[in-house]
């Protein structure tokens, strides 16, 4: 079976370089623009200045995911982490920038190669009840894409689906049931089985354990780790739950208002968070060890992405903000090996 997937990889292979990252996100920007409504069009006709409302959901983001690596993508709601996750999964396209799969630019690939790339990157959603067709028996949901793309020959399909379900902890004899007949944890396992049936290299998990109970969450996280060992899977783990990200990730990328503010290995980032936002975010993660605490909360909320603050987006909430932070956007710079942060404080002596 592994040889089979290797064969498939050979077909899509572009760069013979084994060291090339599995997936590279290269200066990706995603803008959402509101189309002018009738009144705005009329006003524009009459010579009024055009007032375009643009949201920079993702602003010049770059990072890489290697084979077998788990990358955690964290940030508050509205920071663009889900948009970036969707771009990585190929559901959404970047406005600017490139996505490189094994060194090959996805946007300029042929139809066949693009299809292969999409198959190799699968996504698991937060609520499997929303992402599973309620009128399909789960066996059909899980096998549909695998059958269409002929991942295995038709005569082996039943066996393949059975194996995948079993591996995800779903009883294969329940294949004829509908999604509503399963519990939340079981449904999430079905969502995972559906992604896995296509034999992906990379799985994008968008808040995949957020809606589960603690005991079920532990089961699913363990399942993710087992599957990684079994299939050499890489994960992009998009989550607001920093405790879970810390547990599961090799590397962590922190986003704030569309921009990556810090990235590094999990151990390094949690031991020595560099960016003031990361520091604040980490200090507010509740933990069993912290009891009866009085919080030192960071003030305010994430600003509207329609009107992001100038310079460093974090400066209105930052305790160390300087004049420069209001004017100039800090770039990501290495602060240690493999650890990058976008903060002007690093330039000060």
């Amino acid at each position: 079976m592994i040889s089979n997937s290797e064969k498939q990889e050979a077909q899509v292979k572009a760069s013979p370089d084994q060291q090339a990252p599995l997936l590279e996100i290269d200066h990706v920007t995603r803008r959402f623009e509101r189309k002018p409504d009738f009144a705005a069009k009329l006003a524009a006709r009459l010579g009024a200045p055009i007032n375009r409302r643009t949201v920079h959901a993702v602003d010049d983001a770059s990072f890489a995911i290697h084979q077998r690596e788990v990358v955690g993508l964290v940030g508050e709601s509205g920071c663009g982490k889900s948009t970036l996750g969707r771009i990585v999964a190929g559901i959404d396209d970047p406005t600017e920038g490139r996505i490189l799969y094994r060194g090959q630019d996805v946007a300029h690939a042929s139809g066949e190669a693009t299809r292969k790339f999409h198959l190799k990157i699968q996504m698991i959603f937060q609520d499997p009840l929303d992402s599973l067709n309620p009128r399909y028996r789960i066996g059909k949901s899980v096998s549909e894409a695998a059958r269409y793309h002929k991942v295995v020959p038709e005569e082996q399909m039943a066996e393949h689906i059975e194996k995948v379900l079993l591996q995800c902890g779903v009883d294969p004899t329940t294949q004829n049931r509908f999604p509503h007949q399963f519990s939340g944890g079981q449904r999430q396992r079905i969502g995972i089985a559906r992604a896995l049936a296509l034999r992906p290299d990379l799985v994008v998990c968008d808040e995949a354990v957020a809606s589960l109970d603690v005991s079920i969450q532990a089961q699913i996280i363990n399942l993710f780790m087992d599957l990684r060992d079994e299939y050499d899977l890489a994960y992009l783990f998009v989550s607001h739950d920093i405790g879970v990200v810390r547990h599961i990730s090799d590397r962590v990328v922190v986003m704030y208002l569309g921009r990556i503010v810090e990235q590094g290995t999990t151990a390094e980032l949690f031991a020595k968070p560099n960016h003031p936002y990361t520091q604040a975010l980490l200090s507010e993660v509740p933990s069993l060890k912290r009891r009866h605490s009085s919080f030192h909360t960071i003030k305010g909320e994430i600003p509207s992405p329609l009107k992001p603050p100038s310079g460093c987006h974090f400066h209105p909430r930052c305790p160390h903000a300087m004049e420069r932070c209001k004017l100039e956007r800090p770039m990501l710079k290495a602060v240690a090996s493999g650890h990058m942060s976008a903060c002007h404080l690093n330039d000060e002596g």
Partner: protein
Amino acid sequence: MTTNMTSRSDYALELRGLETVFDGDKGAVAAVRNVNLAIKPGEIVGLVGESGSGKSVTGLSIMGLIDRPGRVSKGEILLNGEDLRKVSAKRLRSLRGDRMAMIFQDPMMTLNPVLRIDTQMIEAITAHDPRIDKTVARNRCRDALGMVGIPDPEERLYAYPHQFSGGMRQRVAIAIAMLNNPDLIIADEPTTALDVTIQAQIIAEMQKLCKERGTALIWITHDLTVVAELTQRVYVMYAGSVVEEGPLDDVLDNPLHPYTQGLIRSIPADNDPGSRLFQIPGMTPPIDRMPKGCRFHPRCPYVQLDCLNDIELTQTSAARSVRCAHPINQGEQVS
């Protein structure tokens, strides 16, 4: 504000043997069974459990918000010593929103999307005190908004719910709950949908307000880490019953019930990234197919033959109780 003519008690709220059932085709099934709970003024108590544990039904039962086919079938709900099961619907209505209030996970359950914030807030005051001066009521609303950390409260009174962010909406819901200075607030997962930074802010506000005003707070959640930060005492619920109760530190450091221990162990620890998490096998049984005896026994790693007998909540020390035939040895630390 209504004058309280009934006898005062030591507790803001006391539940004695609360049972809530849901009537179905196959007879009544109990979602909450024999729950005893007591909370003093100013105390913050955590009610912890997974989905299906009955924690939310307990909260709704206290507020008298259980609808058919559900009903509170047994027990006493004493708010300041007054049994809410015996009072008239009118009296209950006047207590609700005045002496006790509830905050939900989704603030849009509390807020009317087509009414301005000031309309909704002033209504919460005039409903309990019809003769109050409108300006006085309005000022109280503004102060309440300011207190929960909403900037420009005067201006924000004119806003509609959709003009607030999720965190701000939850603050408005908290401000409304606090308006009449209630004796008891039941908060059902109020920060679950919010970011950690906003969660931290809201927890800090609630802690401060309850301390200042002597409001008793029941925080219903599945998240033990939040409970660890916020509460003084904790009740752990499983399959409709309280399985363990006690002071927060004792319960977290020395859980007596295997379920509590499992819950604590399944939370990713800071010191051991990448390791396999402890997992409780199986899942909470459905309400109509509860196992015999100890309801946790099919998932329990320490199960023994006598676990098939019914087991009551038993006191193990002055402040602690556990519902288990073979509680974990005291002193055995959670790794």
